């Protein structure tokens, strides 16, 4: 399926009905972000509290057991930083 930016008006289904369930995963909510979570691994205890609280389920566990945000989806809301027990997450401005 074409990405949203590639679709012409002729590609749209009648009434803009979405007949392909689950395609919200294509939606790059990471575009909204102005701050990005950065984990200081020296202080991270790999507890997964950030993973539990992330409202977009944008945080996943790496093979080493650390937790990191998928920046395709992460909106930069800062809830992970707020909830982190050890304070190892800092929000860094997106400078671009």
């Amino acid at each position, binding site marked *: 399926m074409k990405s949203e930016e590639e679709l012409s*008006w002729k590609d749209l289904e*009648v*009434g803009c009905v*979405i007949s392909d369930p689950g395609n919200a995963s294509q939606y790059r909510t990471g575009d909204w972000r102005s701050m990005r979570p950065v984990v200081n691994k020296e202080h991270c205890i790999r507890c997964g509290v950030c993973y539990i609280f992330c409202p977009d389920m944008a945080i996943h566990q790496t093979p080493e057991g650390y937790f990191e945000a998928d920046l395709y989806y992460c909106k930069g809301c800062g809830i992970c930083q707020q909830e982190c027990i050890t304070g190892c997450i800092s929000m860094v401005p997106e400078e671009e």
Partner: protein
Amino acid sequence: MGKRVGIEVSIAAADAVASANVDVVAAYPITPQTHIVEHLSELVNNGELDAEFIPVESEHSAMSVCCGSSAAGARTFTCTSSQGLALMNEIVFIAPGLRLPIVMILANRSLSGPLSIWNDHTDVMSIRDCGWIQVFAETGQEVYDHVLFSFRVAEDPAVSLPVILNMDGFILTHVIEPIEYWEPGQVKRYLPDFKPVNALDPDHPTTVGAFGLPGIYSEAKKAQDEALIHSKPHILKAWEELGQVVGRHYKPVETHLTEGAETVFLTMGSIGQTVAMAVEALRDRGEPAGLVKLRLWRPFPFEELRQALRGAKRVIVIDRAISYGGTGGPVASEVRSALYGEEHMPAVTNFICGLAGRDVTPEDYIAMYQRSLEMTQGKVGQEDFVFYGVRE
């Protein structure tokens, strides 16, 4: 041929909806639409019509229910007027965006304030750009025929758009007219079963009414506009086949005595009948007057209108609504745009009259004719528009 009966037009309109074997009617009563929904609720209550009649708590809910039932694949009807349409407004714009083929009769009535229950076109003009197919009926028979026409066009898979059928409040809704009912066989021949383009189905789940980001909204609107523009050949075909089935022939733009006419009135809705009398009286006096009636308002019939007005020196557009602080009446504004750049473009004079049911007689139209001649012959200043009959 169907039986011809003398009947109130509202009752006939409701009978036409029933003859279309509608599945869902969701409506809230409002003058002057009331008799239509009352009669439909009676038919359902008496078991004469197998349909869901949903007595909603507001017009906003009425149109919301209609969107839901149409999306579920049900043949859906509603009916409103004036303030009801205003309350319905938010959802009115959603139906064509979702391509839901709902049919709505609008019993045209002025908008408050001052509060008024009488007829003009200020209600429908408030939603001019809502994206529905919009037609105007001139007589009770036209209302009856166009109920079936509206379902036929709306549900055409190549169209799949909602249709507003405008009928003038009281002037049409509350009069008794001779109306020829369609035989069930004629309805069956003309109106196929509703096969929705998209229907909510648990086995094939879809999302209807998703949001559109800036990256897709323009494409969605372009697709919607194209759908409305390209509904026209299907509208013409539906009228052609209506003619074959019941022998009455309708066109997007109707003409009356336009042969050799220099000054042509342009009307929408029931006043076409009165203006026709004025034009006939003018012709009897040797005045080269004619009449053009716009039946199809959206999609706007540019080519047919230009064709009908070719050769005319001036056009008198009768508007029954005002674009406050703007160019006068909304119909005149559209007609000027349609004619702009035409070779030998006729002068367009615009009279706003008949607001909130005020009587306008053939003599009034003859007076407008004279005034239009004076305006375009430089005897008086060419106003953009004239509020006809307003006490100074």
